[in-house]
C-alpha cells in the first residue's frame, strides 16, 4: 500500500485518492458516518455538523463531509467526544420546532402536551407525517437523545400549502440546506435559497414568496432531498406511511429521457412516486410530471371494458365479442379490398414488446407494411 495516500479510520489503514473527503473514504469502506446536510454530488456545505469526526492532532472536531483526507491522518468516527458533539447537535435540532416523533419525549406512555399541540397545529391526530422515514428521528434514536435538554423554540414561520404539490412545513425544517443544493446545484432551477439570518433563517423562494409565485417548477428534487418532514408531497402527507407501501421500480412513461422511478403502492394504488437514486439516466431527479402526474393511473375515466358502437352509441361488450368482431371486420376488408386497405398505428407510448407484436401483426397477419406511429407528430 502506498503510504503516501492512506489514512487511518478507526484503526483501519485505508487508501484514498487526493481530493477525496474523509466522508467519501469512510463511505467507500462501509464505515458509517451520519450526515444530514450532505447531498451526494453537490458541494459540501458543512452546515449541520452531524458528520463531525475526531482527527488526531486537530484542535477541534472536523466536518468529515468537507475535510479532505490527508496523508497519515488518524480519524475516529465514534469517539466519546464525537458522540457528545452529535448528541448536542441533535438535541438542538429536536428542540427547534415540531419534531413530534416519539423520541422527543421518550419515557412517557401518555401523549405529551407538546405532541397534542403539534397535532392541533397539523390538524392531524397522528405523529409527524414522516415518522419512520426521517433521518433526524433515526439519528435521535441511534444516539438516544430526546429534546428535553433545551426549551422548545417557537415555530417562526407558518406552513405553506397553497400549491398543489409540496407542503413546506417550516416547523420541521432543520435548515440543513439540502433542498437549496438540490434546487440550485442538481436541477439548477435556482428557485430557493437561504433567507434572513441567525435564528430567523428561512429557506425562501424568490423574495420570500410562495413557491407557486417563484421560479419553482415543482420538480420535487427538494422533497426527495429533505431529510426530515419539512418538505412533503401534499397528496401523500398523513396519507402514506412507508410501512404501508411497497415500492416497484419502473421507467417513467412521459418523455423520452426514461427516468427511473419508484412507484409507491398502497392498497393496489400508486400513491407516491420517487426517483431512483444512484442509477442512470436520472440519478434520482424527476420533473413535475414524472413525480406528481400519476393521477391518471387511478382515474375514474379509465376504460375498463371493451366497447362496441351500435347506432352511434357505445355499449359494453365482452372481450370475446369485441375481439371476434374486430377480427371478422379486418378479415373481411383484407379479403375484399386487399391487405393494403388496412393500416395500423402503433404507439410511442407502449412498450417495445407491444410495438413488436403490433409490427408482427401488421406484417404477418394483415400482410401489409401500412404501420406507423406518432414519432412525426
Amino acid at each position, binding site marked *: 500500500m502506498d503510504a503516501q495516500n492512506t489514512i487511518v479510520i478507526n484503526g483501519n489503514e485505508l487508501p484514498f485518492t487526493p481530493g477525496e473527503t474523509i466522508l467519501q473514504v469512510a463511505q467507500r469502506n462501509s464505515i458509517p458516518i451520519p450526515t444530514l446536510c450532505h447531498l451526494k454530488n453537490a458541494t459540501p456545505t458543512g452546515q449541520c455538523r452531524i458528520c463531525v469526526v475526531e482527527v488526531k492532532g486537530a484542535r477541534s472536531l472536523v466536518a468529515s463531509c468537507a475535510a479532505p483526507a490527508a496523508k497519515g491522518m488518524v480519524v475516529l468516527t465514534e469517539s466519546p467526544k464525537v458522540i457528545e458533539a452529535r448528541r448536542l447537535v441533535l438535541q438542538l435540532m429536536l428542540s427547534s420546532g415540531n419534531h413530534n416523533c416519539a423520541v422527543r419525549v421518550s419515557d412517557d406512555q401518555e401523549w405529551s402536551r407538546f405532541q397534542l399541540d403539534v397535532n392541533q397545529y397539523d390538524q392531524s391526530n397522528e405523529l409527524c407525517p414522516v415518522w419512520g422515514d426521517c433521518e433526524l428521528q433515526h439519528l435521535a434514536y441511534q444516539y438516544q437523545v430526546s429534546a428535553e435538554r433545551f426549551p422548545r423554540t417557537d415555530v417562526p414561520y407558518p406552513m405553506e400549502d397553497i400549491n398543489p404539490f409540496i407542503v413546506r412545513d417550516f416547523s420541521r425544517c432543520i435548515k440543513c440546506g439540502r433542498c437549496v443544493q438540490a434546487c440550485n446545484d442538481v436541477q439548477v432551477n435556482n428557485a430557493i435559497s437561504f433567507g434572513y439570518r441567525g435564528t430567523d433563517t428561512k429557506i425562501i423562494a424568490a423574495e420570500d414568496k410562495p413557491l407557486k409565485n417563484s421560479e419553482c417548477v415543482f420538480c420535487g428534487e427538494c422533497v426527495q432531498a429533505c431529510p426530515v418532514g419539512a418538505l412533503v408531497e401534499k397528496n401523500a402527507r398523513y396519507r402514506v406511511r412507508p410501512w404501508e407501501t411497497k415500492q416497484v421500480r419502473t421507467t417513467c412513461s412521459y*418523455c423520452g429521457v426514461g427516468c427511473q422511478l419508484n412507484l409507491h403502492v398502497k392498497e393496489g394504488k400508486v400513491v407516491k412516486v420517487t426517483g431512483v437514486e444512484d442509477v442512470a439516466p436520472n440519478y434520482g431527479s424527476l420533473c413535475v410530471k414524472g413525480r406528481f*402526474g400519476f393521477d391518471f393511473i387511478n382515474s375514474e375515466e379509465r376504460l375498463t371494458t371493451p366497447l362496441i358502437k351500435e347506432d352511434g352509441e357505445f355499449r359494453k361488450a365482452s372481450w370475446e365479442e369485441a375481439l371476434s368482431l*374486430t377480427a371478422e371486420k379486418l378479415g373481411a376488408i383484407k379479403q375484399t379490398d386487399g391487405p393494403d386497405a388496412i*393500416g395500423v398505428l402503433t404507439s410511442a407510448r407502449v412498450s417495445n414488446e407491444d410495438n413488436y407484436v403490433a409490427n408482427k401483426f401488421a406484417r*404477418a397477419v394483415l400482410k401489409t407494411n401500412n404501420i406507423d406511429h406518432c414519432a412525426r407528430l
Partner: protein
Amino acid sequence: MTNTIGDLEEADVILITGSNTSENHPVISSYIKRAVKFNGTQLIVVDPRRIKMTTFASHWLRQNLGTDVAWINGLMHVIIQEELHDKAFIDSRTKGFEELKAMVEKFTPEYVEEITGIPAQQLIDAARLYAGAKNAAIVYCMGITQHISGTDNVKSLANLAMLTGNLGNAGGGVNPLRGQNNVQGACDMGGLPNVFSGYQPVTSDAVIQKMEAAWGVTGLSNKVGLKVTEMIPKALEGELKALYIIGENPLVSDADLNHVVKGIDNLDFLVVQDIFMTETARAADVVLPSACFAEKDGTFSNTERRIQRVRKAVDSPGEARDDWWITTQIAKRMGVDMDYENAEAIMAEIAQVTPSYGGITYDRIDFEGLHWPCPTADHPGTPILHKGQFPIGRGNFHAIDFTPPAESTDEEYPLYLTTGRVIYHYHTGTMTRKSEGLNERVPENFVEISSKDAKAFGVSDGDTIEISSRRGKISAVAKVCTTAVSGTVFIPFHFAESAVNMLTSAALDPVSGIPEYKVCAVKLAAAQ
C-alpha cells in the same frame, strides 16, 4: 442520440436548437445547466422564442421560423472560411466535402442575416465558438424536424458535426431528444412502414426470407407501406378502409384537424385501443381497453437508445389488458397463432430477429439499461455511436440548399404561429389533464404573445382572443410575456377543446412525412 445523456456534462460547447429543453426534457436540461454552471461549458441556443435555456446561454441566436438550413449553412461557411474545420476527420471519415463547400459558399453571414434575421456578427461568433471547442454537442428536438425541410435540417446538423469532427467523441455528437417515452422503441421495433425491427428494410429479399422463416409465415409484403400522414388522405380517398390505432390520438395531435376528422369518418372500420376514451376513440367502431405503464411488464427504449425495464406495480382496472395480449388475440381470431407466455418471452423473440437487440435479456437490464446496438449476450452495449467508423463506412456530407417554409405571412395573416408543449402537460393532455395539480398550474389553452404585438393588435394579458389561420380558428387566453418575440406567437397543443392543430398546416416534409407544425400564418381578433 449518438451520445448519452450523461455525456452532455463532458461537452465544452453545447448547441441547442429547436428544443425547449427545460420544459420538455427537464431532467436533460439539468445536465446542460450543470455543465454551464459547474464545468464552464458554453451554451449556444438557436431558437425563435426566448425560452428559459437562453438565460443559461452565452449566445442566443434568434432565427426566423423555418430558416434553419440557412443558419446552419452559414455556420459552416464561416467555419470553412476561417479554416476551423477538422481536416483530418474529413479526410479519413467522410465524403462529399467539396460539394458541401461549394454549396455553403453563398451562405455568407450577410446573406444568412437576410434570410434568418440573425445578425451577421452573432453567426460568426457562434461559428467560432462551436468549431473552436474540443468537444461540441448538438441537441435538437421537434423545432428542427417539424418543418417541410425537417430532413434537410437534420442532415445539415449532421454536416456541421462532421465538419468539426464531433461524432464518435465523448461530449460531442448529434443528439435528438425523443419527446415520448418509447418513440425510440416504437421505431426500433418496426413501427414504421419501411422496416422490420432493427431497421431491416422490407424491400430486402434476404430480410423478407429471414422474417418469414422466423415467424413461420409466407407472403410478407416487400412494398413500403403508408406513413401516418399518408394514411389519412388515403382514407379520405377511400383507398384505406380500416385502421387499428393503438395508444394514439390523431384527432388532436395531427396537423390540419378538419382534414383528419373527414379521413377518419370515411373509414369502414376503426378500432382504437387505449387507456382513455380519447377524441379518436370516440370515433371508433370498437374500443379496446388497455393497461397503462404501471400495470405492465416490458421495456422502453429511451432517447439515448438505452433499453430499460418497465415493471407491473398495480393491476389494471376492470378488464383492461396488456396491449400485446389484445393484439395477439385478434391475430388468433384471424387464424395466426401469436401466443406468448409473457412480455419476457416477446423480448426473447425480439432479440432473436433484431440484430441491434440481440444481446438484450431482462436479466441483463435488471439494474441498469443497456444502449443498443447490443448484438450479443456478452456485448456491453454502445453508449456512443460512430466511434472510429460509421456503419456505412464514410459519412456523407449532404450539400443542401435553403428552401423557405410552406407558408408565409401576408396582410390578412400577419403573424407567425409556432406550437409546442409546456412543462405541466404532455402531448394531447389525456394523461396530465387528469391531474388536478397539473391543471391548477396550467388550466387552459393560451397564446403567448410579445408585448409589442399585443399592443399592435390591441390585446391585453388575460383577454380571450380568436386566432385564425387559412384552415381554421380557435380561441385562447392571451399571455403577454417576454418568451415571445415580436412577429411570432406560440400556442401549446395539449388542449383538445381549443386544438391548435385546427390552425396548423399539413404541408409535409417530402422524405419523413412530418407536418410543418412549427410554422403557419395567423391573425388575431377579439373573441366573439
